[in-house]
């Protein structure tokens, strides 16, 4: 029977090449979003073959389906409730033994499975020989050898998928030595209940004997669940008397089966591989960290340099367009709203100018991850960063932040643990980005002469210091809890896939544009309106001193008196919310001088201590609106975004105050 529409799910361990296969099959016909309620990417796409449409969902990579992590829950729930016609289990041929653990769990679920035996080229290189036919016989499912980047085996894979979906043959299970009788016993009880209509009885039996909390919760709504749970408890007790621990016994049984299969199908000669040799250098106790920093630095230099011309071009293009259209409508208010410096057109340009940078960084990050080096980087940095409240992979956003916080916040995605990721996101704005550097370098010399460099350096360090302090406090209070055990797999090094990198960079950039772009545009408009609306007439004014934003500045002045600020500094800081580079230009405009003269002008009005305080404030207060949008987007919560804003302002104010008070006390 020919099916029009086949639902396919891709499953497998991390690092097996799942995304490559997904991209090869779906090409341009794919969409990336989020799994509902979670911050994990959901990738779905289509593949047409012979008049049939394959709807393919790429499940998160997992080592098993025991509901211990968010990824496992997503993968498992999708298979149980969405009931795909075929599950494709992608297995790394160079790592068969460990990969088969997930395979067995999929077989337990009783779904239709086709195995893609990927990385055959790597297996061959490592002198691993696999008898594919024997493997297929042992697992009782079709096994298709593939080399995903070359597209080898994918046609046959698709054919097997279609065959399986249309043949309606019931999948067979594999017996588990030693525990099979217990499983069968419980399974028989389940077969006679309602539960059998939704869940595969054998699978449910295994899960209950393993005491899987998520499954127990899932069946609690059913009629016979209490009865079945009692039976399960009883059988478990007997297993415990025999084996000591039912869960361990079942896991051991799985590995027994795997051992048997491997011994019959795999022949390998373990030797030192190129990966081992590279690791000797990269993981060396003295060279490891410096090597990492060098690699990271060059990667980001590359990304920033390559994207800069494009970013500049986009910014200039939209400024040019705005310039041409200025004065078009004849109504100054509308003109400025659309074509002015903070108007919609320039705002659009501002949003778009981030896109090349995000694309370049994510391209480079994808290569970094795909090559296998990222796991080593996390390993090398984990111990030092743990002491500072951060996780190993947090080094990445911490370094990208030096260039720009927007892609840095997005790059926190590489951190698997949700709490660690949130900490990295919330603390990132403290890291001085290049925009702030622009302002600081412009005025530092006028006030500090030969010490200007030292002052700027200490501002950088202050930023990092606050990152660590905040992280440690968060770790000890709100985010306290059991640490996920530190276990990372090191995949063999491989040539990273260009294709995957391109797709990932495109996905990330378009997501940024859609999600963050709106927030940024709205924020720009609000500031723009405040800047051009005259206080008394509520109509257009080209003199910011009469505008609403100046009113806000003047009314907040008393609050900032202890810091020795004048209302213009406040207004410039408000403009800084738009983009930190603007603080310089805003101050220049408000003081009525050009950007090249503002430093000198300020040095006549303020003491070095006051200006140092102001610089500290600008360094630490709220992130620019683009960063804020990124924080909102990646943290998925307004609560944490608000926290970042309030916390930043509070710390900035307090430190500014301390510096100014103590400074004047000491230096007069």
């Amino acid at each position: 029977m020919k099916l029009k529409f086949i639902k396919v799910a891709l499953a497998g361990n991390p690092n097996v090449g799942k995304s490559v296969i997904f991209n090869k099959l779906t090409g341009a016909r794919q969409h990336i979003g989020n799994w509902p309620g979670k911050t994990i990417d959901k990738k779905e796409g289509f593949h047409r073959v012979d008049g049939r449409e394959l709807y393919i969902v790429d499940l998160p990579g997992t080592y098993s389906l025991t509901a211990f992590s968010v990824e496992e829950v997503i993968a498992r729930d999708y298979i149980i409730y969405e009931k795909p016609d075929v599950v494709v289990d992608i297995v790394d041929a160079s790592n068969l033994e460990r990969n088969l653990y997930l395979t067995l769990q999929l077989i337990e679920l009783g779904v239709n499975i086709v195995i893609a035996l990927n990385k055959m080229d790597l297996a061959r290189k490592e002198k691993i020989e696999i008898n594919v036919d024997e493997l297929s016989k042992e697992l009782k499912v079709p096994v298709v050898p593939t080399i995903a980047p070359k597209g080898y085996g994918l046609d046959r894979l698709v054919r097997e998928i279609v065959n399986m979906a249309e043949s309606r043959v019931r999948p067979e299970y594999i017996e588990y030595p030693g525990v099979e009788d217990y499983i069968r016993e419980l399974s028989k009880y389940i077969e006679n209940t309602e539960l059998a209509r939704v869940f595969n009885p054998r699978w449910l039996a295994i899960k209950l004997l393993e005491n899987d909390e998520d499954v127990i919760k899932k069946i609690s709504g059913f009629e016979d669940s209490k009865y079945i749970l009692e039976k399960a408890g009883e059988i478990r007790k007997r297993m415990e008397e025999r084996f000591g621990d039912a869960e361990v016994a079942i896991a051991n049984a799985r590995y027994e089966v795997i051992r048997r299969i491997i011994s019959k199908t795999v022949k390998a000669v373990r030797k030192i591989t190129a990966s081992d040799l590279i690791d000797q250098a990269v993981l060396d106790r003295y060279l490891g960290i410096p090597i990492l920093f060098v690699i990271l630095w060059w990667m980001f230099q590359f990304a920033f340099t390559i994207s800069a011309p494009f970013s500049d071009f986009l910014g200039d293009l939209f400024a040019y367009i705005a310039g041409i259209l200025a004065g078009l409508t004849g109504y100054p208010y509308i003109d400025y709203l659309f074509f002015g410096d903070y108007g919609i057109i320039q705002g659009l340009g501002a949003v778009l100018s981030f896109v090349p940078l995000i694309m370049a960084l994510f391209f480079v990050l994808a290569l970094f991850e795909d090559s296998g080096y990222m796991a080593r980087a996390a390993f090398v940095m984990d111990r030092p960063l743990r002491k500072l409240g951060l996780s190993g992979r947090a080094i990445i956003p911490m370094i990208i932040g030096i260039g720009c916080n927007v892609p840095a916040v997005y790059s926190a995605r590489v951190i698997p643990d949700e709490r660690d990721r949130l900490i990295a996101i919330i603390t990132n704005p403290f890291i001085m980005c290049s925009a702030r550097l622009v302002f600081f370098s412009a005025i530092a010399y006028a006030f500090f002469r030969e010490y200007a460099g030292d002052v700027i350096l200490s501002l950088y360090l202050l930023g990092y210091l606050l990152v660590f302090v905040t992280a440690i406090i968060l770790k000890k209070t709100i985010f306290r809890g059991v640490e996920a055990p530190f276990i990372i797999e090191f995949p063999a090094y491989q040539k990273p896939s260009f294709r995957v990198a391109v797709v990932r960079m495109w996905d990330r950039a378009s997501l940024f544009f859609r999600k963050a772009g709106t927030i940024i545009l709205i924020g720009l408009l609000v500031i723009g309106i405040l800047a051009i609306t005259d206080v008394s007439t509520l109509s257009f004014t080209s003199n910011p001193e009469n505008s609403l934003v100046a009113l806000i500045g003047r009314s907040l002045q008393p609050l900032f008196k202890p810091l020795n600020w004048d209302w213009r500094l406040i207004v410039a800081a408000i403009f800084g919310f738009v983009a930190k580079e603007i603080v310089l230009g805003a101050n220049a405009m408000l003081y009525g001088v050009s950007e090249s003269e503002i430093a000198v002008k300020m040095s006549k009005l303020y003491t070095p201590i006051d200006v140092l305080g102001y610089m500290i404030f600008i360094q630490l207060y709220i992130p620019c609106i683009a960063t804020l949008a990124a924080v909102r987007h990646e943290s998925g919560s307004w609560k944490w975004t608000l926290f970042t804003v309030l916390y930043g302002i509070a710390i900035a104010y307090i430190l500014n105050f301390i510096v100014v008070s103590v400074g004047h006390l000491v230096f007069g």
Partner: protein
Amino acid sequence: MIIPLIYLPDYSTAVIVDIKGGRGFVRRLYEMGLTPGTRIRILKSSGPGPLLIEVRGSRIALGRGIGMKIFVRPDYITPSNP
């Protein structure tokens, strides 16, 4: 003689005898292939930072705390590892 994994020197091999810990912890290790009866090889144990071991054909990095909870029987005894 049964000792915690963390005391093994670089390049030695051993068989896992037991893993002490909570359910979730033990389960996680099982998924990665670390089960009683499995032979492992230490790739890097010296120096600061996590342990690097080879198990079932793949390389895994483990925190040192985890290394304290995995008990193994070494394959051989060397002068530096009595």
